């Protein structure tokens, strides 16, 4: 006799009520009108789903769009990559050598493991067809006939949900051969990881998709010329694809106007840590940080805000004083010396020790370094051990200089960005909270407990 753990433990499954269906979004596009039950194809269609695909294929009375028109619309929208790098999506699509005679691939990066980030899971769980439609439009625009969605191994139920949605889309003729009676063919499949943060790096993801250990490749060549199985490949994040149908339906200009110049559209921010209502909040780009914090119920227990890691754990921390004036968009956060990244906003209140917080992050990067590049493999271990001894009250006077030196010797000296991602939080913490580290070293104890 076998038993199904998903059923047995269904009472512990997240409903999405707290994180997604709280009605606290501002002008949502991707998460609009969702309730957890209405994820299937029929519900998606009743929300206007697959109209964008029908529109470009000329199936609703219009003439349809050319590949160039689709790419131009996405360029006009100002959509930038939602996975972390913020690269302009339309520009990336234009890099695909459309006339390449061999197989080309489209890949969705749903390996969402940047600490603090939990938006792609909700998108795929509660609105999977938005991702499928976005990928089909992208495939059309770039002349691609095969795609894969690589999904984080830890969210297996979401992987199974996505596979179910794929079956629905195939049955309805939105995927497969001769889509909606046109000459456009697109086969889309789901793949999964199994516990490796590094596979969120796009070339490590490609290696993993090829059935190998996920160690990043040298770039160049970039995936657009040498990607999956050595063929031209375009990779975008889940949220990026999910934004595309709205853009095609409403126009690039309308999307751009939702946000700020150079920062078009809405963005889903995953707010975690010391807030009353952790969850996903879809708001227009450029929304002031205090507004976002208010949506998330403010700082937990009415305590004072101490710091925010605004774009996932790899983004440098910013103190509360700087956050009050920040708007949530790529340019504003970059100007403050951090990054919007994946939109994961980790909130720390006044009771938090920054040494201890950094310690956990440094452990993570050491644990997840793929080991390929010496500066990262060795350096992340150095960072963790030095922060660990400071936390334990065994820090030395020279340790802050040592941390800075190790960080400097990792940055820019590795194949992929994990090395930089490990070094940046260290530098950000020491830059803004140096006094806390110094206090730990001098007094062998934490200053936070004394102050709060």
């Amino acid at each position, binding site marked *: 006799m*076998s*038993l*199904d*753990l*998903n059923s*047995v*433990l269904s*009472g*512990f*499954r*997240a409903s999405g009520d*707290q*994180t997604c269906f709280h009605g606290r979004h501002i002008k949502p596009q991707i998460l609009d009108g969702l309730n957890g039950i209405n994820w299937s194809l029929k519900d998606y269609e009743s929300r206007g789903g697959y109209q964008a695909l029908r529109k470009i294929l000329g199936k609703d009375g219009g003439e349809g769009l050319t590949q160039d028109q689709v790419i131009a619309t996405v360029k006009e929208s100002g959509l930038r990559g939602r996975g972390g790098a913020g690269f302009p999506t339309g520009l990336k699509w234009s890099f695909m050598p459309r006339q390449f005679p061999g*197989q080309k691939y489209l890949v969705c990066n749903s390996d*969402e*493991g940047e*600490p*603090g*980030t*939990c938006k*792609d*899971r909700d998108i795929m769980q509660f609105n999977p067809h938005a991702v499928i439609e976005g990928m089909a439009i992208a495939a059309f625009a770039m002349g691609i006939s095969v795609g894969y969605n690589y999904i*984080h*191994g*830890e*969210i*297996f*139920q979401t992987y199974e949900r996505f596979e179910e949605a794929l079956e629905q889309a195939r049955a309805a003729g939105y995927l497969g051969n001769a889509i909606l009676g046109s000459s456009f063919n697109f086969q889309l*499949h*789901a*793949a*999964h*990881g*199994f*516990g*490796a*943060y590094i596979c969120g790096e796009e070339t490590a993801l490609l290696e993993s998709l*090829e*059935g*190998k*250990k*996920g160690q990043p490749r040298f770039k160049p060549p970039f995936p657009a010329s040498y990607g999956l*199985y050595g063929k031209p490949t375009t990779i975008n994040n889940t949220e990026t694809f999910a934004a595309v149908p709205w853009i095609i339906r409403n126009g690039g200009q309308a999307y751009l106007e939702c946000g700020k110049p150079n920062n078009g559209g809405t963005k889903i921010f*995953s707010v*975690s*840590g010391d807030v009353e209502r*952790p969850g996903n909040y879809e708001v227009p780009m450029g929304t002031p940080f205090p507004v976002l914090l208010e949506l998330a119920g403010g700082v937990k227990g009415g305590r004072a805000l101490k710091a925010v890691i605004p774009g996932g*754990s790899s983004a440098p921390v910013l103190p509360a004083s700087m956050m009050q004036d920040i708007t949530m968009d790529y340019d504003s956060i970059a100007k403050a010396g951090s990054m919007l990244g994946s939109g*994961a906003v*980790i*909130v*720390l209140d006044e009771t*938090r020790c920054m040494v201890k*917080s950094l310690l*956990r*992050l440094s452990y*993570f990067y050491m*644990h*997840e370094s*793929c080991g390929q590049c010496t500066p990262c493999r060795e350096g992340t271990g150095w960072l963790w051990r030095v922060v660990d001894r400071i936390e334990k009250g065994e820090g030395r006077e020279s340790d802050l200089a040592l941390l800075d030196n190790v960080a400097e010797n990792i940055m820019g000296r590795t194949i992929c960005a994990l090395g930089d991602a490990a070094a940046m939080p260290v530098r950000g913490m020491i830059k803004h909270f140096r006094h806390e580290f110094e206090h730990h070293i001098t007094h062998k104890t934490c200053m936070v407990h004394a102050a709060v």
Partner: protein
Amino acid sequence: MSSTQMNSLDLTHPPKASEFSDEIVARFAREVAKYPNDQKQSAVMACLSIVQQVNGFVSPGDELFLAAYLEMPPMAVHEVSTFYNMYNLAPVGKFKINVCTNLPCQLRDGQTALDYLSKKLGVGVGGTTKDGLFTLQPGECMGACADAPVMLVNDRTMCSFMSTEKMDQMIETLSALKDDGVQS
């Protein structure tokens, strides 16, 4: 989710390739069908996870089977099984629980939850209870940060907002299944 134990090849007694039922092989075939004919290796991640779901862990014999089935060197399968944190390379408890303790979860009692389960089950982190029922491990980011404390049971079932009361309920529910077969 690091695995400190690894399956190792005993060269004096080389492993024999495992055998799988037609039903399981059909599941492997479904994964292989997603990829080009000359890229069967791409299915290794999914096939290994199916093996683990069925057998609880991945043995050297399982790797030999998949190597032949996917037309790749056994060492290439082993490279994959040893690289990704979620593959068990040695038997674990009937229920493997991974608790996320990364920073966003730590801020919402992720570490406290792990410590609580460790005490409740009487087992150290990384260990397995004497009755073989539970293995307790820390986890890295599961991409469910707003659900903290969050934990995975047997890789595929995520449990969210795990307060002390809910952890008690979960352990009680799972303990009652000690004589049942498991398919996560």
